[in-house]
């Protein structure tokens, strides 16, 4: 039996996106370029390195909660080397909802290792992997900076409040990943061709939304924008002194 890795990905606006509001008072998603969450890119890249080293013994499934407009992003993950994909057909609303969808899939299908980014870069909650591990009762680590697999165990380097901790923990595991776990990959022409025929299974949504947002606002930051010349450096030093004293 190959080892089954589920890589959960978010589809997020490109990191350089300018955020504006649409007429319904929510962030306007039209016209933004969507990408795979950068942290998920790291997670997927590491999974693909495992598969490249051992093609027969690793099976990678991409998991995404979102509507059909995310399919080009899922297709790109398949082009990078994942075997298949599952898309839960609903709008991702919150972390608990997404985690419940992941857990309900994992309860019906055999999965040994769940990888995702340490957080998505749109809502930055960093909660999906934690909720998933709690619902499934699996052990959990995040943010993981190094990952190796040895038989039924993972060798991890985890960044914690005290520093970086090297440890061994047995499967199954849920991991939130971050750099430098792997280098981002670029799909090859062969990979892109192969991805066209790889399956994307569409699943019906089963988890409810946890809460309802009322409206969004652009967070205007009014910075003072005061520029000093070199000869006035002492004034800037006085400002630093004042800031540090207060």
């Amino acid at each position, binding site marked *: 039996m190959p080892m089954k890795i589920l890589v959960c990905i978010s589809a997020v606006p490109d990191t350089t996106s300018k955020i504006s509001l649409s007429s319904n008072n929510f962030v306007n998603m039209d016209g933004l370029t969507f990408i795979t969450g950068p942290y998920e890119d790291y997670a997927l890249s590491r999974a693909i390195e495992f598969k490249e080293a051992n093609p027969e013994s690793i099976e990678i499934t991409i998991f995404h909660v979102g509507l059909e407009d995310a399919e080009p992003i899922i297709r790109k993950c398949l082009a990078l080397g994942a075997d298949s994909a599952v898309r839960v057909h609903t709008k991702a609303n919150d972390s608990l909802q997404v985690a419940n969808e992941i857990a309900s899939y994992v309860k019906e299908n055999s999965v040994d290792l769940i990888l995702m980014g340490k957080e998505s870069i749109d809502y*930055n909650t960093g909660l999906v992997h934690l909720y998933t591990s709690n619902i499934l009762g699996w052990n959990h680590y995040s943010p993981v900076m190094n990952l190796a697999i040895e038989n039924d165990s993972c060798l991890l380097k985890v960044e914690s409040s005290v520093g970086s*901790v090297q*440890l061994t923990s047995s499967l199954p595991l849920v991991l939130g990943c971050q750099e430098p776990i792997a280098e981002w990959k670029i799909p090859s022409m062969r990979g892109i061709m192969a991805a066209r025929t790889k399956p994307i299974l569409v699943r019906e949504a089963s988890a409810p939304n946890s809460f309802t947002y009322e409206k*969004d606002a652009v967070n205007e930051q009014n910075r003072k924008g005061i520029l000093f010349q070199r000869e006035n450096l002492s004034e*800037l030093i006085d400002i630093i002194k004042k800031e540090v004293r207060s």
Partner: protein
Amino acid sequence: MKNIAAFIDIKEGKPSSRSKQILQLIQGIQQKMYASVAIQLFTFDTVDKVDLPSLSNVKLYSLQGASDTGLLSKEQIDSILTLMSDDVSTCVIGYKSSLIDTILTAAAIRFNLKVIPQVISLELTSDQFAIQQSIFSGKALSYLHVSHLSVLQLNPAFEFASSIVDTIEQHCENIALPANTTCQVTSINKIAQGANLAEANYVVGAGRGLKDPSNWNMIEELASKIGAATACSKPVSDINWRPHSEHVGQTGIKIAPQLYIACGISGAIQHLAGINGSKTIIVINNDPEAPFFKYADYGIVGDVFDIVPEIVKNI
């Protein structure tokens, strides 16, 4: 609401400046609506007694047994949740961090509550919290109302405005957590710097404008003079000039200090996503066109090798 469980940091016998925001919030809740609510404060710091704002019906626990690795196993989290009252009428509060988040989510699942993520400000209403949530790395805010029985994951820049008048000395009860048996730790590489970057009040950041890792002496000197933590841009940690733990930005640490001094950092949008919670931003760069100047409170166009030593000398 019958209980509040909150996670705070204690530095030198006092709550950290971030933790003060939590205590002010709890005081506000007690004053405005739930005078009888029982308060449980948890800290991972080792303390005997602490000067706390005057709250009624408060207990303080020091959790022992996680400080060597900064990680918690399921059993350890369970034992913390067991300390919380089994009454489900609870509100749980803590700042977002990889350690605290593990407890917040476990509490939410155990007590059937929702984690409200990235709370940057809130108002108290008689039956709900009116929440502002930071989204898109601080570029936007989302508004929602949630039940008082919620788990609040606070954004580093969270503030609850009020002024604490009285403080009282609070004794601390030590709680020994069970041993972490779910993993075998092979080595720990401790962070060298004393000031924890994510919680630092002052941060000095530097980028490729420093030209060589050996030039960080002056950055460290400036940081140590004002009691700041040191940070760096992504390119600098990518080429291993500085450790990854110092990388601040979209894919690194998000900081929210009182003062951020950026030296030789151009201000790419990915870096700004990590620092936009800073109260005051000072930018030092030799390129007048550096985008960072548009996001600065104070800027000076000049050579970092001239300006920074001059600041160090005169501060």
